[in-house]
């Protein structure tokens, strides 16, 4: 199977933005687009029976009850998923994608995406799922796990999507982001879109030469590129830069630090995702 743009959708309000973003990416990359809806049919039951007793045939009866419950839920979820996929497909066709595909799988989102990632060129996903739609500032429970699990680029859409006109690349000279620069230079995704390369850190000779390398790489590939070095805290600085320059998409490496550090001080990536108001493209 050829590598494709996959867009994970569900019933949340983020799904429309995901549709548009996926359509844009599919057209720009010239890669086929597939919408994916995942049914997790085995969430714990809402109703509980705390009677704590065992009747004759308790095992068989419990199995029957639980399967019946799952079956009913799964049928509804399947039907809803089909409708959502249909709607997404229509929307993508309106956006100009010729033949968007749809796929429905059973399982948890993270496991399913992990299984499918070999067919994946880019994953487009919303900030939160339908389970956590109104949690304000929080990330959906799945997003961080998805980002940590997959080894593919992920485009996270916080809300409505519009075709980006100015993109910023968060650059720190690390291996991941250097690869990111090369990817951006080559990728048809950003053809004709001006790229701002920003290093958050002190104005040192090393940072300067890193930045020059990045700008040269991008310009050699025919991009319009600008650079800046800003001191400060990563998330706030990038946010400031974004507002100042009217940036409408952010490209960055994901989870550069160890998990232990993450546990202690939190992660820049998580912070960026949580506060995001424009789409973020995460490179792995």
């Amino acid at each position: 199977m050829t590598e494709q743009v996959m867009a994970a959708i569900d019933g949340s309000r983020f799904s429309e933005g995901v549709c548009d973003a996926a359509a844009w990416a599919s057209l720009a990359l010239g890669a086929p687009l597939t919408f994916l809806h995942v049914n997790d049919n085995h969430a714990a039951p809402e109703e509980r029976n705390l009677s704590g007793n065992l009747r004759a045939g308790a095992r068989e009866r419990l199995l029957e009850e639980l399967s019946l419950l799952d079956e009913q839920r799964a049928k509804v979820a399947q039907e809803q998923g089909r409708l959502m996929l249909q709607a997404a497909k229509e929307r993508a066709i309106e956006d100009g994608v010729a033949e968007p595909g749809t796929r429905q799988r059973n399982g948890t989102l993270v496991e399913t995406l992990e299984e499918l990632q070999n067919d994946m060129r880019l994953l487009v996903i919303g900030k939160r799922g339908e389970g956590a739609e109104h949690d304000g500032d929080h990330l959906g429970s799945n997003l961080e796990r998805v980002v940590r699990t997959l080894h593919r680029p992920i485009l996270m859409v916080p809300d409505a999507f519009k075709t980006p006109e100015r993109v910023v690349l968060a650059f720190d000279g690390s291996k991941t982001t250097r690869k990111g620069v090369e990817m951006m230079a080559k990728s048809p995704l950003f053809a004709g879109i001006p790229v701002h390369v920003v290093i958050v850190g002190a104005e040192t000779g090393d940072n300067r030469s890193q930045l020059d390398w990045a700008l040269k790489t991008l310009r050699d590939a025919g991009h319009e590129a600008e650079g800046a070095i800003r001191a400060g805290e990563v998330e706030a600085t990038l946010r400031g830069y974004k507002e100042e320059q009217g940036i409408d998409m952010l490209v960055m490496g994901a989870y550069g630090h160890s998990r232990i550090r993450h546990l202690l001080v939190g992660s820049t990536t998580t912070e960026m995702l949580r506060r995001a108001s424009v789409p973020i493209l995460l490179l792995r």
Partner: protein
Amino acid sequence: MYEKMKLSWFSNLKGDTLSGIVVALALIPEAIAFSIIAGVDPKVGLYASFAICVIIAFTGGRSGMISGATGAMALLMVTLVRDHGLEYLLVATLLTGVLQILAGYLRLAELMRFVSRSVVTGFVNALAILIFMAQLPELTGVTWHVYAMTAAGLGIIYGFPLLPKIGKSIPSPLVCIVVLTSVYLLTGMEIRSVGDMGELPDSLPVFLWPDVPLNLETLMIVLPYSLMLTVVGLLESMMTATIVDDLTDTKSDKHRECKGQGIANIGSGLIGGMAGCAMIGQSVINIKSGGRRRLSSLIAGVVLLMMVVFLADWVSMIPMAALVAVMIMVSIGTFSWSSIKDLKKHPMSTNMVMVATVIVTVGTHNLAIGVFVGVLLAAMNFANKVGNILYIGSEEADEGSRRIYKVVGQVFFASSEHFSGAFDFKETVQKVTIDLSRAHFWDITSVQTLDRVVIKFRREGTEVEMIGLNEASATIVDRFAVHDDPEAVEKLMGGH
């Protein structure tokens, strides 16, 4: 990892907490009852259930499954405790833990695929019968009060959940125990209570090393028991894991579970608890009460210990009749009643395996022996059936001077007799052709039988020619995993 941990521990907080408490309440009478079966103080079983529940929450391979002191294990310990005492039981428990960890690393859980469904059903039924039988001493030679109390207890256990609303929010075994204890205390009737059965935990458990000489003699005493405990513990744990897998439609890590059971048993032995394993009834109760994740097992263990230690005086006043009622419920709930209905539908050979497992287990009080007999019978049944898939036909050729035998099917130890019997050695022919291209020789017995057939023909002066021997004997090779390659399977099993 952090996310995985969150998912396997805290993704079902409310359900796990409530179910953990329900399970803890149900664990107390069981742990006491199983201690009595094993012939030790109730505190041995209670500490064991606490330790195993808590440790397995971290080390187990099947979330949502409940482990603790069990009847199957208790039955195996009776003679060890009687002849050598508690300290040796603790050593046996530690050794069992070590052996189970070893079994986990050797991936012995793979062997479970040789345990057929009928053997599992037989195991479960035998277990239920043994738990029931273990209650009989409490019901013989006693006054009518005990019968009345037990009957009332059963009435509450099965009747209470029918009440609207509260029936499904308060565990009925708990109601049974509270009501019967109140009646017992108020009337002051002369019946036995838990306090009469031995010591209850009066403090949090402490770490202790069994007081026995660490020498070969000790090892020789405990080893046979430990081996049995290892086998039965893992068997019941694997079976329970499969049941929980089915109920929740999720997967478990059986090898991790083996190691986890081992670690839990070592922990139990070190705080003065007996060996235990997964509990079928409790796991079903946990799932039914909404428990799914590791947290449920941890809460069950912690709540159990808190209740027992802080309410020890009250626990000692629970009349035995209440425990008997709860254990009868466990035995009724564990028994697979549908297997009795199925006796009519299932083939005789399958029924025989199930019934034999039950009879041997109940006769020996040893589930390991019962399962062994069941597996053996099932294997023999299978060999017998496959051995019947063998056809040998023949036709004359060259105007009666030659006979061609065609062999189609499976030739192995169980069918080689049939194979050699199908040739007519008395017929005088110059030449015999044996076409083996559609036969399969599975073992050395079948090859030797073929050799004998050839020799016998030669001794009659008949020349023997064989066709397709190489293909037929390809199946003797020990390693041919071809089940994931349809073409290879076709090549091996088809018409060559």
